[in-house]
């Protein structure tokens, strides 16, 4: 029994310690943002890796999620004779929750893990030490552009996801099930409001982007400098970032409603 309590205490301590280290790392990245040089070239390359290369996945997933949503909701709404509300329900659920969260989880798996793997393998091959010996801060050179790119890419991918999902639901509802296209769009436009819904979506995706950027770069920098360490760090990024996204989603939703 005592052993269990001790283990629990130790686990909590290391959790808090870990949070502290991530926060310190976040502070370092923030400081780097205001120091020259801007490293715009690296930022663009990172944005390519995180954003452009994720578009296919996001578009396909968005469209599929939209189709499933359309199908599920339409069938359910028909039971209440409220099919015309499809646009509204699809719009609200996508914009407020499904869009940012599903997009966040997908990008975590695709781009977040890639960033951790890249930085981790740089650590394992002493490239980060090499930078230090050239009096170049590895956080400024490697982590900052990637974290920033993930932060910027997330809201953009979120918007794409939602648009594709709306299209997917449209295809199912209108072409497949015979709902009137105009009614669908009118319901959508009527229910979704910028201040409440799109604004919240934007905020969520920004927060998720920041969290992912921070977690993925930190885990790459902090990993054990060998192949197994890099692999562990990559998995850890996906798990930790996913949990962080889901938790912060709850917090934002709750606070926004206030």
């Amino acid at each position: 029994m005592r052993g269990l309590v001790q283990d629990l205490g130790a686990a909590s301590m290391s959790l808090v310690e870990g949070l502290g280290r991530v926060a310190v790392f976040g502070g370092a990245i923030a400081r780097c943002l205001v120091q020259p040089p801007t490293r715009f070239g690296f930022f663009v390359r990172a944005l390519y890796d995180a954003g452009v290369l994720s578009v296919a996945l996001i578009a396909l997933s968005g469209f599929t999620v939209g189709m499933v949503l359309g199908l599920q909701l339409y069938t359910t709404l028909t039971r209440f004779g409220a099919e015309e509300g499809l646009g509204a329900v699809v719009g609200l659920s996508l914009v407020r929750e499904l869009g940012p969260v599903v997009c966040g989880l997908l990008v975590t798996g695709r781009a977040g893990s890639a960033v951790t793997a890249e930085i981790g393998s740089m650590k394992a091959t002493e490239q980060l030490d090499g930078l230090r010996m050239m009096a170049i801060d590895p956080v400024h050179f490697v982590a900052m552009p990637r974290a920033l790119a993930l932060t910027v890419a997330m809201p953009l991918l979120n918007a794409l996801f939602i648009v594709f999902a709306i299209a997917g639901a449209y295809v199912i509802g209108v072409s497949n099930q015979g709902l009137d296209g105009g009614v669908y769009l009118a319901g959508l436009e009527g229910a979704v409001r910028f201040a409440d819904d799109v604004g919240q979506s934007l905020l969520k995706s920004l927060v998720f982007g920041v969290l992912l950027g921070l977690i993925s770069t930190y885990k790459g920098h902090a990993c054990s400098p060998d192949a197994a360490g890099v692999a562990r760090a990559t998995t850890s990024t996906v798990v930790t970032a996913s949990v962080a996204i889901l938790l912060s989603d709850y917090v934002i939703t709750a606070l926004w409603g206030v």
Partner: protein
Amino acid sequence: MPTSLGPGGSTLTGSAEPAASAGEDYIAVRDVHLSFGHRVVYRGIDCRMRKGGIHLLLGGSGSGKSTLLRMIGGLQRPDRGDVTVADRKLSELKERELGEVRKGIGMLFQNGALLDSMSVLDNVGLPLREHANLSRSEVAERVSRVLYAVGLTDVEALLPRELSGGMLRRVAFARAIVMEPEILLCDEPFSGLDPLNVTRIEELLVRLNSELGLTVVVTSHHMASSLRMADQMILLRDGDCVAGSPEVLAGGDDEGVIEFLGEDGRAYLARLNELREPTREASGRERERDHR
């Protein structure tokens, strides 16, 4: 040809006397203790490196050679004791100040540590672009000059993965010296290379030391070339070290050294001694040939 011989006599841990001139203490390791978890790496080692000398760190694997090199570069902090480079105590410096010290140090990592997504030109030119105010063409010009000095031409556009082992090592070398540092730290520069490249690198080190006065610290397994070059050999064993010029150490007369190394150590020294004589002659001949 290395200039004067290193400190005459051996330096045993614990009984070391601080050397007379400041030049002797250009790089100084004082009473350093370091452990990684339960594994003790150093239990209080002392050594000094003279400015402008070629210093060799020798020892079996796991004896802490690379770690000592990293400590001189400030990448590793000791648990106790301090490392001083050019009169600056590294443990007292913040990361930014450490960066200033590092601008005068070039480090050659065992696997090159080149940035794998950047071309040779970008890699070698990186310190210049970050710290020197040069135009693009000036950077390109300096890079091609330093690449030529290490015996490479027309490689600027290649990526690290497209280079052979020897070429990679030499590109990393070029990067380490492109900012004209005062100290050059080399981690196993000869490992995994064919004899031709070993000779090339060795000649480079000697030339850099004699022509530019660089202080060179090298970790190595490679006995023959080590002896050719070194002013001072520092042997690491069991968390301790013993240092001296190759003649003194290999001579096998010093009681302290023999005691330090033990039975197997004596055999090692005997082998060192064997290699020393013929190779010194050979290198003398080579240098004559070069001068013509």
